[in-house]
C-alpha cells in the first residue's frame, strides 16, 4: 500500500512565523507535489519536485519555498506566514512520467490556519 504522510493534520500559526510542512512517501516515487485546496477553487499546484534537489514552480509559488534533500521527503516552507495562506495543504507523490504510471497518491492534508 502506498503511503503518503504529512507531519500535522491541523496547524495554527501567527502572521510572520516561519512554517514547515513535511511530507513523506514510502513508494520510492520520483515526483512529489504540494497543493493547496480552497473552497470553490479546487486544487492549485504550488511546487513540485521530480528528483532529489530538483524543484519547479507550480501555478501559485509566491510566498512559498520547498526543499527536497531526500527522495522520500518533500517540505513546503512558508517563510513568513500570512493570513491569505490559511488553507488545506495536500501533498502527493507519483512515479516519473513515462514509467507507466502517473497516478498521484495524496496525503491526508494539513489544515493550516494563520491568525
Amino acid at each position, binding site marked *: 500500500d502506498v503511503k503518503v504522510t504529512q507531519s500535522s493534520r491541523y496547524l495554527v500559526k501567527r502572521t510572520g512565523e516561519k512554517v514547515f510542512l513535511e511530507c513523506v512517501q514510502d513508494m520510492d516515487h520520483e515526483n512529489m507535489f504540494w497543493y493547496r*485546496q480552497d473552497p470553490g477553487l*479546487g486544487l492549485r*499546484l504550488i511546487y513540485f519536485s521530480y528528483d532529489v534537489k530538483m524543484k519547479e514552480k*507550480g501555478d501559485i509559488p509566491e510566498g512559498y519555498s520547498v526543499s527536497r534533500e531526500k527522495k522520500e521527503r518533500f517540505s513546503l516552507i512558508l517563510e513568513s506566514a500570512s493570513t491569505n495562506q490559511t488553507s*488545506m495543504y495536500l501533498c502527493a507523490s507519483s512515479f516519473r512520467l513515462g514509467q507507466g504510471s*502517473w*497516478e*498521484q497518491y495524496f496525503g*491526508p492534508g494539513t*489544515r493550516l490556519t494563520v491568525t
Partner: protein
Amino acid sequence: EDKVVQSPLSLVVHEGDTVTLNCSYEVTNFRSLLWYKQEKKAPTFLFMLTSSGIEKKSGRLSSILDKKELFSILNITATQTGDSAIYLCAVGDNNNDMRFGAGTRLTVKP
C-alpha cells in the same frame, strides 16, 4: 473511519462510447463532493456538488450526487481520446478537510 471509494479502478473504452464513473463515500459532516480530471501534473477541477439530485453539466460531462445513498456518478458521453485521464473524486466536510478516492483510470482508444 471516513472513506471515499471509486469504481471501477480502470476502464478502457472506444471513442464514442459513454462511460459512468462511480464514487461512494462515508464521511462525517459531509459538505461537498468534487470531481477532478488528472492528466499530468495537476488535477483539473470539473464539478462541485453539494445538493442531492441536481445534475451539473459541462459539455459532454455531467455529474449528480445522491446524499441519501452516499454516492455520485460522473458521466462522459461520446468519449474522445482526449478524455483519457484519471478521474478523482474528493469529499469535503464541514471542517474543509478533503478525502480523495484512489481514482478511475479511463483510457479511450481511437
